[in-house]
C-alpha cells in the first residue's frame, strides 16, 4: 500500500488529540484509511441518548474525493436508508478538499439534529415523516432505544 499522505496523518492525530464532543473516530490497525466512528445522538433530537456506529473510508483520491461514510447502526431517519447510506450534500456534490473528516462527521451529527424529509434518501421514511411527524419521531426514538445502545 502506498504511504499515507501527510494530510491524513495530521487529521488522524488531531481526531485523537482533540476529539469532537460526542464523536469518536478510530483508524483501523490494518487500514489507516478505514475508521470506526461513533456519534452520539444530539440532545433534544429523537436520537438523544443513542450511540450510533458508523464506518468511514478515505478513498485513494481523498481529499479530491469525499470520504465515504455509512451508518452501521440501524436508524430511522428520512435521509439515511436501510443500508446506512447518508444523503448529505457535502458527501457528494458539495464536497470540497477544504472539508475534513472532522467537519464531515459534524455535518452527519447535524443531520441527526435536523432531519430533512424534503430531501429524502429513505423515501418511505420521508413519506411517514411528512404524513405524520409525531409518529415518525416516536418511531425514531423507539429505534434509538432498540438499536443504538
Amino acid at each position, binding site marked *: 500500500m502506498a504511504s499515507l*499522505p*501527510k*494530510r491524513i496523518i*495530521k487529521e488522524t492525530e488531531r481526531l485523537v488529540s482533540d476529539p469532537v464532543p460526542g464523536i469518536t473516530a478510530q483508524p483501523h490497525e490494518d*487500514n489507516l*484509511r*478505514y475508521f470506526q466512528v461513533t456519534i452520539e445522538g444530539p440532545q433534544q433530537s429523537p436520537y438523544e441518548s443513542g450511540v450510533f456506529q458508523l*464506518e468511514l*473510508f478515505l*478513498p485513494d*483520491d481523498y*481529499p*479530491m*474525493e*469525499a470520504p*465515504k*461514510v*455509512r451508518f452501521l447502526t440501524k436508524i430511522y431517519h428520512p435521509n439515511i*436508508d436501510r443500508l446506512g*447510506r*447518508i*444523503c448529505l450534500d457535502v*458527501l*457528494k*456534490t458539495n*464536497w*470540497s*478538499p*477544504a472539508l475534513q473528516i472532522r467537519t464531515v462527521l459534524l455535518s452527519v451529527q447535524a443531520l441527526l439534529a435536523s432531519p430533512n424529509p424534503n430531501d429524502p*434518501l429513505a423515501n418511505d421514511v420521508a413519506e411517514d415523516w411528512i404524513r405524520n411527524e409525531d409518529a415518525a419521531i416516536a418511531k425514531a426514538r423507539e429505534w434509538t432505544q432498540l438499536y443504538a445502545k
Partner: protein
Amino acid sequence: MQLEFKKVYPVFSWSWDIPGDDDADREIGDEDLCGICRVSYNGTCPGCKYPGDNCPLVIGECNHNFHVHCIQQWLATPTAKGLCPMCRQQFSLKRGVAINEGQVEKLANLLLQPRPAALAADDQDMMMDQEFAVR
C-alpha cells in the same frame, strides 16, 4: 588566537513571495498551509519530492493559495465545478503576481476544458458509489 576555517557549509533558506503575506490578522495555525494537502506552501504537494520551482504555488483572484498541482488536480474533478475549495468562488489566477506567471496558461487550459455535466440529477447513482471498497 588564530582561527582557521577548514570547511564552509553554506545554507540557504527561501520562501515564496506571497503578496499580502504579512497581514497581521491572518489566523495563526492555518497560515501558510495549502488548503488542499495541508502542507506548507514552501513544502511540496503529496506528489512531488522537491519544493520550489518544481512544485510552484499559485494565488487565486480570491487570495487563496495552493500548490499548483493540488489545485489542478481538484479543478480536474467533476465535483469542483471550477470553484475554489476554500470560498467556492470561480477559481482564477490573480493577475500581476510574479509567482503566478508561467502557471497562467496551464490553469487556463484546465479551466477551458469542458467539464462533465452537473451531477445533481443522478444523486441516487452517487449514493450507490458510497459503497465501501474495503470491509
